[in-house]
């Protein structure tokens, strides 16, 4: 047999039907559902008299719209249209018999944090969700990607997706990371290298010593932003760390089934000599704490760099950079570390896990945020929040002057009341710095949780290595 990539193996194991023209039906093991991209899909099912094919493989949780303030049990904290969406999810989850974590459940949180936390996401699975950051689950060696609402309806009705196979890309990060450099810096540096369209048409497998060295939380951060590089999915082969993370979780297999599962998971790696259509290699030691300056995730540089000039670029990017700099209110040549910040947001499916909160708290311990700074921590799930309180992290954040919030997507996409005002400049641990993403006219700089904490203290973008 010819050597296969990890992607080839998972793909082959989920092929339910292949037509003569190569159009495939891929079987879906886990379908995650949230309130914003699902109402029209459930309505479509009803209109056609269809039902959910595999409710036991369908997991629903409201996250995008929900307020994260402590008074959210009061329905008035939500706008009418948000409330209608959350109520629609409640109704659909109950009517179709899905696994459901309502707002009142301590396990509620961002769908991509809840899935792994509850053991729904396991190696070798296919996982989809009506959300582009589904790529997160690739950290377990599961093929995971975002889909549109029509495809949500297709999966609900058939538990399959019509697919054509993507190409294979290998992204290898060799060697060790230097102190102060995190998974977020890896994933942003890769996008800086490939561009936001560099991964289009590919599934990326991340490998190399620096990836192996990452915790599961860090690997989720790396895979989460595969979509920001345009890739269909990001994958990391499972190993002992993966098994250890999964073991004992509520929906992970137990006993003999666990043993059988691990035996299978150990076959999930890229064979020696397997073909990749594209290979990118970065040296771990070359990666620096990074930050974005523009309005595309590819607009990323080491914190020691300066705001670039449109003339540094070619083609359509020249105009795009000019537009970005105008929007961001930045002048070419300004050192990134001199850019003043109004707001710090720590959270999201990219960096809302316990390890992220630990990294930020380590910088903030015993310190205060800059006067006038607005700073908030939004844990990725109710369980992350509880653990952070148990570890004393919540106290560190609050003592420093951060707001300590309930779980949700919050200011990552600003669908709930957490938004930037026009011109407000935010250091954010989220994943997108698009125009208007965090609020109309809002200016976003993406960075790691430790870098966000450092900026909260100094009031400007700061090289975290100077405050460690």
């Amino acid at each position: 047999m010819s050597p296969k990539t990890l992607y080839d193996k998972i793909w082959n194991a989920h092929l339910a039907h292949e037509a003569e023209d190569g159009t495939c039906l891929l079987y879906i093991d886990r379908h995650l559902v949230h309130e914003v991209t699902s109402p029209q899909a459930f309505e479509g099912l009803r209109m056609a008299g269809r039902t959910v094919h595999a409710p036991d493989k369908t997991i629903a949780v409201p996250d995008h719209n929900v307020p994260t303030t402590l008074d959210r049990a009061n329905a008035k904290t939500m706008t009418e249209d948000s409330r209608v969406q959350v109520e629609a999810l409640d109704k659909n989850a109950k009517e179709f018999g899905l696994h459901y974590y309502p707002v009142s459940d301590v396990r509620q949180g961002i769908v991509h944090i809840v899935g792994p936390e509850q053991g729904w996401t396991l190696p070798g699975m296919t996982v989809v969700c009506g959300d582009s950051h589904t790529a997160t689950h690739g950290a377990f060696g599961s093929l995971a990607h975002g889909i549109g609402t029509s495809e949500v309806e297709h999966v609900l009705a058939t538990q399959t997706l019509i697919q054509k196979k993507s190409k294979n890309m290998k992204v290898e990060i060799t060697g060790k990371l230097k102190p102060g450099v995190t998974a977020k810096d890896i994933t942003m540096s890769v996008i800086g290298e490939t561009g936001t369209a560099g991964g289009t048409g590919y599934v990326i497998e991340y490998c190399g010593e620096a990836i192996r060295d990452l915790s599961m939380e860090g690997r989720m951060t790396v895979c989460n932003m595969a979509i920001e590089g345009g890739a269909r999915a990001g994958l990391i082969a499972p190993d002992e760390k993966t098994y250890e993370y999964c073991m004992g979780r509520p929906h992970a297999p137990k006993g003999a089934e666990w043993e059988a599962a691990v035996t299978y998971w150990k076959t999930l790696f890229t064979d020696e000599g397997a073909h990749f259509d594209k290979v990118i290699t970065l040296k771990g030691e070359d990666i620096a704490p990074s930050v974005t300056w523009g309005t595309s995730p590819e607009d990323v540089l080491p914190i020691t760099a300066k705001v670039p000039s449109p003339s540094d670029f070619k083609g359509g990017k020249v105009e795009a950079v000019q537009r970005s700099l105008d929007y961001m209110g930045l002048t070419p040549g300004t050192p990134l570390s001199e850019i003043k910040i109004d707001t710090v947001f720590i959270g999201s499916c990219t960096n809302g896990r316990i390890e992220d909160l630990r990294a930020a708290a380590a910088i903030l311990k015993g310190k205060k945020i800059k006067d006038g700074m607005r700073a908030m921590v939004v844990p990725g799930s109710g369980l992350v929040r509880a653990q952070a309180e148990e570890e004393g992290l919540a106290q560190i954040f609050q003592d420093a002057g951060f707001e300590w919030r309930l779980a949700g997507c919050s200011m990552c996409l600003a669908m709930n009341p957490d938004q930037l005002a026009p011109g407000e400049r935010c250091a954010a641990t989220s994943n997108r710095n698009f125009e208007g993403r965090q609020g109309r006219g809002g200016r976003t700089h993406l960075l790691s949780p430790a870098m966000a904490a450092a900026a909260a203290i100094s009031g400007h973008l700061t090289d975290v290595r100077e405050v460690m």
Partner: protein
Amino acid sequence: MDKFETLTGIAAPMPLINVDTDMIIPKQFLKTIKRSGLGVNLFDEMRYDDDRNEIADFVLNKPQYREAEILVAGDNFGCGSSREHAPWAIKDFGIRCVIAPSYADIFYNNCFKNGILPIVLPQEQVDVLMKDAEKGANARMSIDLEAQTVTTSDGEVFSFEVDNFKKHCLMNGLDDIGLTMEKVASVKAFEAKAGAERPWV
């Protein structure tokens, strides 16, 4: 789903790269539980000022492009969020075809589910079409999906590639859930086999 066979109409030029779905339809309009009515908010933050007045120099506000049915755009169109509200808004505005050098994967697939044809052409050909679109409302472009061609207002013809299955569904307005449900025996057989091999899933 609406069929797409041929289209002759006004093309609006939008020579920006990396147009993301947050630009196409900002998040505040995702709170709907319907698919319709989003056209008025297409490109909302580029199209209206803070007082909800139209911004005159935005392409779709210009008199000659208000009835555009084709959009010619830059590289990596539709990147970012998976929101299908983006093609819903485009369709609701009246645009049935987008032409660009490349698209983000999820957006590209979402278009076909909504009767929109996203055409991929090399940058040089998109440049020609962009120039043609800049001529305004009197210069109408034509798309023929069966023949897989775009014809400029000057009669220059460019051929494009499209997946046969997607083309078939779009030309016939087919509901692909219905098509998949015809293969239910294959799906059930797969479930029985996979359930035995990987009972923990």
